[in-house]
């Protein structure tokens, strides 16, 4: 159950949207808050104050902050469940104020923590709610319902005619997400959708959601109070503080590397360096180069390689360059390399491993370095505590302040990529 999905990168996969099959596909929409303020009558402090941020089409923007920071309010302004006081919100350049609330909402997916499934109708009818409001015919709705149930990993035949009360919590949550996606909206609002799920299932649902998002590529506004969830889910994270003030809007890596102020620093937590490791894979950082040796190879050749290598101990590999172990000095005493190991190659790390997991492997094996292999098992370098330490002190991009909110695509990419 570990985080094989943690280091997702935005907009990478581009498989076709299953929703496009019925010709209803709407492209993901961009979303822009422009100087948005929400003030409730009789309250001194604004709930949201002068909030400006832009979410690009197909991105997941996470609104995160302590309770009372206005993150849910900000989300509900988008589909006009709450009307804004000042400023404007634009979806693909069109103001939400120019559309009737009901019409607007039918084109914005909506999923909430309590799910809010209709207990009196079947799962199929729940999912078909918005398509029915939009006047789709029965056949089309029915096809779409089955398609969505499969998309969220539920068996259509087993599930569609059940009532919500007959499902488990995780299944209900999946139905909630399917319902939000029913009419293939270009924008999705999710308010703590996994908040009421136990930790193990939450992690699974998060991973499923990221896989799903990689396929459907919606623009998503995702509200959570959990910074770890924000870091895992978000392409971009907006940290809000009390009174709906935007403290920082940045990519997860930037947020962890350069918190804009003490508030953000406190909020992301003292372990932010470790959190960054969850965002990167082993292939993303500069690995050490090892001197590779084969049994029977000329020892002078190996000694020459050692001069180029980053560590003084040669790595014994087999004919396919698969790591076998670390050679002892005695292995090089003769003319030919002998199979005399000081230690076996334990653990072996893969290029696709999450850096945090790889570090955990090193620490639990009580070793300072480990050979790295590619997908075919060939040696690809060495990961060491020093390498990880150096990575943590390297900037993911040019240093910037919290006021400097706009980040271009280049800098968003993995920092230590060679």
């Amino acid at each position, binding site marked *: 159950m570990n985080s094989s999905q943690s280091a997702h990168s935005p907009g990478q996969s581009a498989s076709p949207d299953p929703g496009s099959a019925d010709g209803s596909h709407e492209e993901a929409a961009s979303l822009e808050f422009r100087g948005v303020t929400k003030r409730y009558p009789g309250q001194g402090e604004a709930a949201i104050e002068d909030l400006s941020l832009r979410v690009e089409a197909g991105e997941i923007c996470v609104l995160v902050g302590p309770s009372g920071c206005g993150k849910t309010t900000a989300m509900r302004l988008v*589909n006009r*469940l709450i009307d804004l006081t000042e400023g404007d919100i634009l979806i693909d350049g069109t103001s939400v104020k120019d559309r009737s*609330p*009901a*019409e*607007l*909402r*039918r084109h914005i997916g*909506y999923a*909430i923590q*309590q*799910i*809010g*499934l*209709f*207990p*009196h*109708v079947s799962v199929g009818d729940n999912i078909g*709610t*918005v398509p029915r*409001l939009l006047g789709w015919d029965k056949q089309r709705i029915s096809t779409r319902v089955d398609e969505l149930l499969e998309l969220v990993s539920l068996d259509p035949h087993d599930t569609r005619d*059940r*009532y919500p*009360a*007959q499902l488990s919590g995780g299944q209900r949550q999946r139905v*909630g997400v399917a*319902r939000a996606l029913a009419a293939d909206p270009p924008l999705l*609002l999710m308010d703590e959708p996994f908040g009421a799920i136990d930790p193990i299932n939450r992690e699974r649902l998060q991973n499923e959601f990221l896989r799903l998002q990689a396929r459907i590529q919606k623009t998503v506004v995702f509200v959570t109070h959990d910074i770890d969830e924000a870091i895992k889910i978000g392409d971009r994270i907006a940290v809000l503080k009390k009174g709906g003030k935007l403290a920082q809007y940045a990519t997860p890596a930037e947020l962890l590397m350069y918190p804009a102020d003490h508030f953000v620093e406190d909020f992301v937590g003292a372990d932010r360096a470790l959190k960054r490791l969850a965002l990167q894979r082993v292939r993303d950082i500069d690995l050490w180069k090892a001197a590779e040796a084969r049994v029977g190879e000329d020892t002078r050749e190996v000694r020459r390689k050692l001069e180029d290598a980053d560590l003084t101990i040669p790595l014994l590999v087999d004919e396919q360059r698969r790591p076998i172990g670390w050679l002892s000095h005695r292995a090089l005493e003769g003319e030919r390399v002998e199979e005399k190991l000081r230690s076996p190659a334990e653990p072996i790390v893969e290029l696709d491993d999450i850096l945090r997991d790889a570090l955990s492997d090193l620490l639990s094996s009580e070793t300072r370095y480990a050979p790295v292999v590619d997908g075919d098992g060939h040696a690809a370098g060495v990961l060491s505590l020093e390498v990880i330490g150096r990575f943590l002190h390297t900037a993911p991009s040019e240093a910037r302040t919290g006021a400097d909110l706009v980040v271009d695509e280049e800098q968003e990419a993995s920092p230590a990529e060679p």
Partner: protein
Amino acid sequence: MNALNAIVLPIAQTDIQGRSGDSCIATNGFCPSWIADNIGEYVNPFLEHIYLTVVSVGIGFALAFALAVLAHRVGWTFGPISGATQVLYTIPSIAAFFLLLPITGRGNLTAIVALVAYTLFILFSNIMTGLGNVPDDVKDSARGMGLTDRQLLWRVELPLAMPEILAGLRIATTTTIGLATLAFFAGGGGLGVEIASGADRVFKSNVAVVGALAVLLAAVFDLLILGFQRLLTPWRAAARA
């Protein structure tokens, strides 16, 4: 008390002894043979009773429903409506019949107006309770998906309030069946006529038949509405399973 006698006595003058000659009757006993001989006498009052009940509860439900929708939409109207229906509910039923007599005269109308007034509070309160029990997250998600207020009411709130609404209907129906036995005071007919027709009003056979018919009627209506409720809310059975 005089006024009461003035109304009751003419009806009561039909001599119970005249219907059948039996020693059981002379002792005011419970006489199966008398019941068998006279059961035909009860058909019309029984049908009248059903008529009074159905019409009163029907009109009461329509009114209470309209009032509840109003109170649900326009929050501040809840207090006044609730208060007014409650006042109507607390007026003693016999007093209501006599209060109405000068306005609506003797007959069905008076009886029905009074009976309707009694159902309002029960039905209104239950419909409001039902609407109030609809979970907030369900309403929020419904609005968030773009249901209009009207769609929310008809497609979500009312179906979910159905158990409480139908529970109210059962109480109102049973209460009305009971109260309708007093409708004869207003000249409204019903089974009460037969109770009142016992000369000394202690003739056990007569009272037993009327009572049994009223209880039977109440039980049948109750089961009908209960069956209707099962039919309308299959999701509740599914939730329990």
